């Protein structure tokens, strides 16, 4: 698992690559939390390079979503593969987190 970040006009784009499972979820949580700064008003987690995620990764996404909501920052996910999109749907996360088909759509939203 690796996270690459870039910023565009106050928006943080965090590209998550590889696998997030129970063995590295803590590492994922630390990496994503520390990539986000208090000034970011919009955070996009780009999952184009993410090949696998389990409930341990969903837990981290929900924690981040809660933290950002508590300070009125926006949060979105984009470019989920078919099975990863399914995992978010089954968990009901598609109803509480904005999910876009592409990074461009997320930036426009």
């Amino acid at each position, binding site marked *: 698992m690796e996270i690459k970040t870039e910023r565009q006009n106050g928006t943080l784009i965090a590209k998550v690559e590889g696998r997030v*499972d*129970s*063995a590295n979820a803590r590492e994922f949580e630390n990496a994503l939390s520390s990539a986000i700064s208090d000034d970011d008003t919009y955070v996009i987690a780009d999952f184009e390079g993410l090949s*696998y995620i389990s*409930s341990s990764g969903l*837990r981290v996404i929900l924690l981040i979503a809660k933290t950002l909501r508590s300070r009125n920052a926006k949060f979105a996910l984009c470019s989920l593969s078919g*099975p990863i999109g399914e995992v978010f749907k089954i968990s*009901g996360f598609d109803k*509480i987190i904005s999910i876009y088909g592409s990074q461009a759509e997320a930036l426009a939203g």
Partner: protein
Amino acid sequence: MSAKRLLRFATRLDELARLSAAIEELGEAEDWPLDLVFQINLVLEELVVNIVNHGHGGDPNHEIEIAFTSEADALTIELIDDGRAFNPLDDAPTPDLDSEIEDRPIGGLGVHLVRTVIDAMIYKRENDKNHLTMIKRRDG
């Protein structure tokens, strides 16, 4: 045509790497669609992590046995462990899937994912072991 494969893992989280490698190898050998490899990996990770974390109170010296039987239209997975009794069909609450972000509890989604992804499940407790049989249709 059916093929059976038996795998054994210790009750440790660092066995997950070996588990996912074994599932990938099996999927490749039997020509599973990539989505099926993902789903089986997800289901087994969630169940194995539950057994490791809750079944033995963190004791790493137990064994989990996983048997795969592959047929043309379905995959049958049998999971056997000697941890405390746990029936994934009844013993895990249905998670809250409707609240707003602020009220959504952290965790509790693993077994829900398993129950949703798997097509049929049978649980029995026998000889102080949990026996979980799961059937996943190959057509998704």
